[in-house]
């Protein structure tokens, strides 16, 4: 198993703070800008990078991330380009963990073992494949773990205790908890509810717990970072890419804007 995630969470534990996971879609809005964004994320304050593998039908994602996939695919995004980005990033950074997130079909077309081998050698640390539940562990999960990549799973507020046992059977690296915003109650009540869910998840696993979905501001990052081991921000980052693109900013300025936002988010955790 690659060690970068373990090392990172170990270091965060020593610093006594939660980590920031920054999500961007590979190739969004174009390969050049996307690589600039990626390369500057650690310096801006991202502790872990989650790189989306663009897909035409991302049914578990909201409109922001779907649009980012469409921008990437419209400008030549592909699995080969995604892995090239990681390879290029690793030339200067061998510490920051990179997780690939996406859907199974592009991997299946690429060839499962070929993909796992290429991802490992490119410098990837783990995978989150949202449309492969534990019932399908024979598809890719076992081979992924054998290859030496982490298999990171999602939990949701509807994952009950018996489901959590199933979920954690073959997972490693960390847990990604989906904090779907409740439709009732105030935001603070939601955070309370979230905290108790995270506590419940902790009773089932020793893995670090990252919380994501619907987290957009430094205040939210700070609040959730008090009880989670890491906080994931995704849609808000790709929305920044979108608005920069709309204003016609250059690759450099687009990347700058994303990095400034990431540093604001990270400030909530220091």
């Amino acid at each position, binding site marked *: 198993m690659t060690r970068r995630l373990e090392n990172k969470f170990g270091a965060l534990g020593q610093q006594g703070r939660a980590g920031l996971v920054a999500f961007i879609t590979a190739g969004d809005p174009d390969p050049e800008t996307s690589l600039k964004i990626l390369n500057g994320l650690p310096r801006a304050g991202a502790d872990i990078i989650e790189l989306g593998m663009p897909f035409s039908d991302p049914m*578990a994602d909201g409109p922001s991330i779907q*649009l980012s996939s469409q921008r990437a695919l419209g400008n030549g995004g592909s699995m080969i380009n995604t892995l090239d980005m990681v390879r290029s990033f690793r030339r200067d950074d061998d510490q920051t963990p990179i997780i690939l997130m996406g859907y199974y*079909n*592009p991997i299946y*077309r690429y060839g499962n073992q070929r993909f796992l081998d290429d991802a490992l050698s490119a410098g990837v640390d783990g995978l989150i494949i949202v449309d492969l539940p534990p019932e399908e562990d024979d598809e890719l999960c076992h081979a992924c773990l054998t290859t030496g990549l982490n298999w990171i799973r999602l939990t949701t507020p*509807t994952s009950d205790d018996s*489901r959590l046992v199933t979920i954690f059977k073959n997972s490693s690296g960390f847990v990604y908890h989906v904090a779907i915003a409740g439709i009732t109650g105030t935001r603070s009540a939601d955070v309370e509810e979230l905290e108790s869910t995270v506590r419940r998840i902790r009773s089932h696993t020793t893995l670090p717990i990252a919380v994501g979905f619907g987290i957009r501001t430094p205040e939210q990052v700070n609040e959730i970072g008090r009880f989670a081991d890491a906080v994931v921000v995704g849609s808000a980052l790709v929305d920044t890419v979108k608005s920069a693109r709309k204003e016609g900013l250059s690759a450099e300025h687009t990347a700058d804007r994303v990095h400034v936002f990431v540093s604001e988010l990270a400030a909530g955790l220091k």
Partner: protein
Amino acid sequence: MPLILDVEKAWHTYRNDETFLSEIRYYAEHYVGRPSPLYFAKRLTEELGGAKIYFKRDELNHTGSHKINNTLGQILLARRMNKRRIIAETGAGQHGVAAATVCALFDLPCVVYMGETDIERQAPNVFRMKLLGTEVVPVTSGTATLKDAMNEALRDWVANVEDTFYIIGTCAGPHPYPEMVREFQSIIGRETREQVQEREGRLPDVVIACIGGGSNSIGLFHPFLDDPEVEIIGVEAAGLGIDTGKHAASLSGGQPGVLHGNRTYLLQDSDGQIHDAHSISAGLDYPGIGPEHAWLHEQGRVQYVSITDQEALDAFQLCCRTEGIIPALEPSHALAHVVKIAPSMPKDRIIVMNMCGRGDKDVFTVADALGEAI
């Protein structure tokens, strides 16, 4: 995932439950109008000069297609699961109308997701759904067609697990949907078996149906799978031609993949990105095919062929002229293949084709294709 497991559990509890099945039978008879007739198409048979051609008249069902066989079964299951809200996806609008219909019948609120592109080309069905009290939500994401409507419905479902049941219209999607849709649609094949034996004293030589996702065809085929003497043919939509890339033929022109929770043949590029299907018939416009069809294809039990837009249009007109039946463009594809094979078959051979929908919804499309203004 737990919500899919709940559906599976309920399905296994009720699939052989006599009260459940008798309730389906009651509505199928008195509301839908089953059994649908098995009709000997005499003039068409004479015109083609070969095998005897029968139509299984599922276009005579309430709402005008086979889709209601399935929505009826699923809503009765949803009621048993105490779900208070129904969602569905639709392409051409036939499944949406069938879902809206049973929701009106059982007084449940219904939301149908439909691609914006499809809303434009299927305006009459959109209005029908509204009349039936259903909210039609336009889907603008992706390419704004059926697959995107299905993505959006899945998103809704995940966000509203507690009270919502998702009625999927085709034999695709995650387990147990393909199996459930097949069981509800198999009434087509079971009736056909009985009717043809009554009329002809034997099983047919060929059964044939069109395929988008494959719900009407699996319903006709399934009760004949263990009869090796019955040749089974599925007809995909070749659109402008398989080699043009503008088609909806997942088996003839697609590759194995995984989408919407099932492994099957998909229209996709070498990077695994899903492509839009093209067909003159909006109901065949799905970039995948039910996983059971993929299996039957690999086993060789069912022969899968394809028919172009133009061939379907010709068959559509032939059917209007010789039989006084305006067929939907979907079964016009199956009919076009009948036109190809019937003439060279001996006159004592029997073909049964599933007339799975009526063509009222398609008159604008056909007029447009024939260059006529109406």
